[in-house]
């Protein structure tokens, strides 16, 4: 039967199943194939905190949402067009995220009595008419997979594990995709188990052919290549980009990297990635705890390496005292916070922007540090390089903020060439003190930056420490005037960084006007889509987005003053709004969401319109 092919501009698919169903892998493969084809893509994995939450329950549902288009897509989409559910719990957890009229592909074996009971359905939702508003396709994926592998000789467990390949194959058919990159992936992944290569490929192809042969599906879709800016692309996730950015920055500065870290979600992937690249002179160190991780990084910086440590909110809290020490020592140090829902253990696998205040103020005493936030997964690369540049050139610890949404999200990246990356200058000691004169470790240049004298350098022996330092000599000092002077010097040093960062710019919309949507961090994509839509509807709305949160760009107040209203959307309870108000005595309208989830564009559009009216 000849099937009709419809063209679509963009499509959002949500794969959902038990955490053991392989939905993350399925989503990643579909993403990669689409990116390779030339679509713009944005993804949002959403998984439970438990590694193996009870099977069949709503708590154990793992989801992967992706949006791909022939137009630029900046978010993984609000509601999905297609919902794939491997069991009843997956349907229960996700049906509210499907558009009215959207397609449900349901694995009927996942709706047996046991599954219905575990997900607390009284009656089978596939049969009770509750899905009448949707286009429901029931496919017995489990049985079809078993049938395909009936002669494989594999254990039932292994057979069932490959049913995600059926789903993937089927969706490839539905969206007219090529199987090549997934075939290559399977061949590499199971290189040591040829029997699994064979079985997975067979199921993948069975899924693909099922589309052709089954009567149920009349329509296929096509999403053409996107008109992305020219260049060479790859697909990248936030934590991966951060790891590459660290390696690149260290190289640009001519420093060796020492990465001290303690396992924590969602930051651990940076450790995993970096630990693979020792031939870049990277040393990774899994410390005994969060405090040891930052302290070891400080020790490494003292020794002349680039000390880096990473964690998420709870770990950053533990690192607070040592971060204060780094402020006193005035050594380079990069601290990464891949934020997650808090407080306390909070929502480990969900995203949030609620550690901004902690980054800015979360230390004892007056201990300002620069704070830099990435806006998209690929932006983690250049933002972290920038954080390291500031840390090294200004001899200060820097906090780099990412979050769970950026860390695990993927997008196409027009990657740079190494030769075009910015250089980083290390403030090494230029002169030894004259014979008979003492070395002054806290002498400063016009940026108020002290030099980096490293053990092993003759004639520059000095003692650092957490006790208040005397200006210039660095000796212990309890002198009242000196203390005030040093507090102000350390603060001024950070303030002066504003002279070495770019201005805040209007991303889209008029330079002055009615409404400015001012964001920071991972809300960039949603704001971008929302403002774009408002502009298309004829509204006078603009977007600006912070990368530098301390110090702020010098033109911040000027930009804000150019608009009648400034809206600040945040995945927290108005933290940036508080900072802006106190810093600039200017008002901004907060728009908060605190659900462990990113904003949808439609939520933002509604808010913009409300203020606009």
């Amino acid at each position, binding site marked *: 039967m000849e099937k009709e092919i419809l063209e679509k501009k963009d499509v959002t698919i949500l794969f959902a199943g038990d955490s053991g169903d392989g939905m993350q892998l399925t989503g990643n493969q579909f993403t*990669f194939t689409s*990116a*390779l084809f*030339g679509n713009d893509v944005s993804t949002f994995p959403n998984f439970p905190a438990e590694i193996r939450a009870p099977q069949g329950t709503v708590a154990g549902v793992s989801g992967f949402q992706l949006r791909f288009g022939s137009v630029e897509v900046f978010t993984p989409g609000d509601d999905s067009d297609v919902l794939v559910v491997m069991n009843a719990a997956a349907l229960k957890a996700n049906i509210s995220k499907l558009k009215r009229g959207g397609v449900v592909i349901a694995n009927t074996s996942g709706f047996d009595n046991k599954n219905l009971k575990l997900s607390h359905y009284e009656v089978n939702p596939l049969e009770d008419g509750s899905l009448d508003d949707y286009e429901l396709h029931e496919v017995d994926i489990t049985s079809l997979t078993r049938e395909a592998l009936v002669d494989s000789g594999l254990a039932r467990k292994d057979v069932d594990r490959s049913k995600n390949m059926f789903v993937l194959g089927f969706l490839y058919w539905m969206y007219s995709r090529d199987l090549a990159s997934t075939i290559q992936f399977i061949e590499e992944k199971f290189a040591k188990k040829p029997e699994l290569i064979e079985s997975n490929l067979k199921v993948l192809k069975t899924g693909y052919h099922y589309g052709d042969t089954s009567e149920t599906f009349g329509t296929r879709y096509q999403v053409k290549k996107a008109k*992305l800016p*020219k*260049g*060479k*692309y*790859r697909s*990248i996730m936030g934590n991966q980009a951060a790891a*590459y950015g660290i*390696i*690149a920055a260290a190289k640009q500065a001519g420093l*060796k990297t*020492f990465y*001290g870290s303690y396992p924590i979600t969602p930051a651990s992937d940076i450790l995993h990635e970096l630990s693979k*690249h*020792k*031939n*870049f*002179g990277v*040393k990774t*160190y899994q*410390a*005994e*705890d969060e*405090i*040891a991780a930052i*302290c*070891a990084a*400080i*020790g*490494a910086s*003292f*020794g*002349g*390496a680039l000390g880096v440590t990473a964690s998420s909110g709870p770990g950053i809290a533990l690192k607070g005292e*040592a971060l204060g*020490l780094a402020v006193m*020592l005035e050594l380079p140090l990069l601290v990464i916070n891949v934020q997650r829902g808090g407080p306390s253990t909070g929502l480990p696998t969900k995203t949030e922007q609620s550690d901004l205040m902690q980054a800015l103020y979360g230390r004892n005493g007056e201990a300002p540090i620069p704070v830099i936030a990435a806006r998209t997964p690929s932006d983690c690369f250049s933002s972290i390089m920038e954080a390291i540049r500031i840390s090294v050139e200004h001899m200060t610890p820097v906090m780099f903020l990412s979050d769970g949404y950026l860390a695990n999200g993927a997008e196409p990246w027009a*990657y740079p*060439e*190494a030769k075009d990356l910015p250089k980083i200058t290390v403030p090494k000691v230029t002169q030894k003190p004259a014979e008979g004169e*003492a070395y002054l470790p806290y002498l400063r240049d016009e940026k108020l930056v002290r030099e980096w004298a490293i*053990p*092993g*350098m*003759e*004639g*520059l*022996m*000095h*003692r*650092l*420490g*957490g*006790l208040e330092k005397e200006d210039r000599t660095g*000796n*212990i000092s309890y002198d009242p005037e000196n203390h005030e002077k040093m507090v102000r010097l350390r603060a001024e040093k950070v303030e002066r960084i504003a002279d070495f960062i770019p201005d805040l710019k209007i991303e889209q919309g008029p330079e002055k006007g009615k409404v400015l949507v001012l964001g920071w961090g991972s809300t960039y994509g949603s704001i971008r889509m929302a403002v774009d839509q408002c502009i298309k509807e004829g509204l006078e709305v603009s977007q600006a987005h912070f990368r530098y949160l301390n110090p702020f760009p010098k033109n911040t107040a000027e930009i804000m003053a150019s608009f009648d209203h400034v809206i600040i959307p945040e995945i927290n309870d108005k933290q940036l709004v508080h900072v802006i108000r106190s810093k600039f005595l200017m008002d901004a309208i907060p728009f908060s969401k605190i659900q462990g989830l990113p904003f949808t564009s439609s939520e933002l559009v509604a808010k913009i319109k409300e203020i606009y009216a």
Partner: protein
Amino acid sequence: MTGSKLRAKDFETDQDVRWCPGCGDYAILKQVQTAFAELGMEKENTVFISGIGCSSRFPYYMDTYGMHSIHGRAAAIASGLKAVRKDLNVWIVTGDGDSLSIGGNHLIHLLRRNFDVNVLLFNNEIYGLTKGQYSPTTPEGTVTKSSPYGVLDHPFNPLALALGAEATFVARALDRDPRHLKDLIIRANEHKGTSLLEIYQNCPVFNDGAFTVLTDKDSKQDSTLWLKNGEPLVFGENNTKGILLDGFKPKIVSLEDGYSMDDLWVHDESDPLKAHMLTRFFGDPSLEGNLPRPFGLFYVNERESYETAMDNQVQEAYNQRGEGDLDALIQGKSTWEIN
């Protein structure tokens, strides 16, 4: 400075030493400086890292590189430093509160990893800098500022803890026996791996006399045992007492009363089981007799240091894959082009 030999005085800084008069820390500082002169140590390649406490002021008084860090974290900071700077001679100066209470976790992990650094653990069985609270080594029942009715906590046995944490060099010295202390500083320096040297240090202000029984002319001969590798365990006036092993039980015998040197336990620094027993010669009333407190090198064992293993792993990566190519890394395996 390299080349010309330094004197002990050359390691002094221009800072006034600010410990209380009579504090045992002075003697330790002096012995470190003396040992360093003897060893021909280079100032610029030596680093002292300390935490917080009276002893942790130490780096300010050594004209080397140094860091007076935060409470309990010296071991963690020194680990990171040594990981990237194998060439440096790194010393950690810490106290019983600093390394066994707030920094206990870092100490045990330092010992198991076996970075080639030296730990000087000043044990005065009290918190001095915060003015007299009990520490994790204060004996039960002791009346201190924070324990007016006596300490309830059972104390740590630092050397037993160190052995339990897989330490490769475990020794004990006394501030009041400078020559012996200096010898152990020199041995600690020689050891490739983490050396833990516990130094009993008198705090005349808050815990005076904690070690008097071990230093007093009248009592020290019966209460101390000076370990020498390959030699039998003898002590007491004129070394007339000895210790032998009766099965797994140490037993004090008199050499004037039927026992000879040949019967005695011979100290073997490389024997981990016997080292464990020696660390238990310590405030343990369940042991028979009144066993003397041992001093000297209990145990030493060469095991690859962490930074060596780490460097080897990095080198292996270079050997296998060559110097990392940044462009190749950034590109990854699959790319596409948009024209």
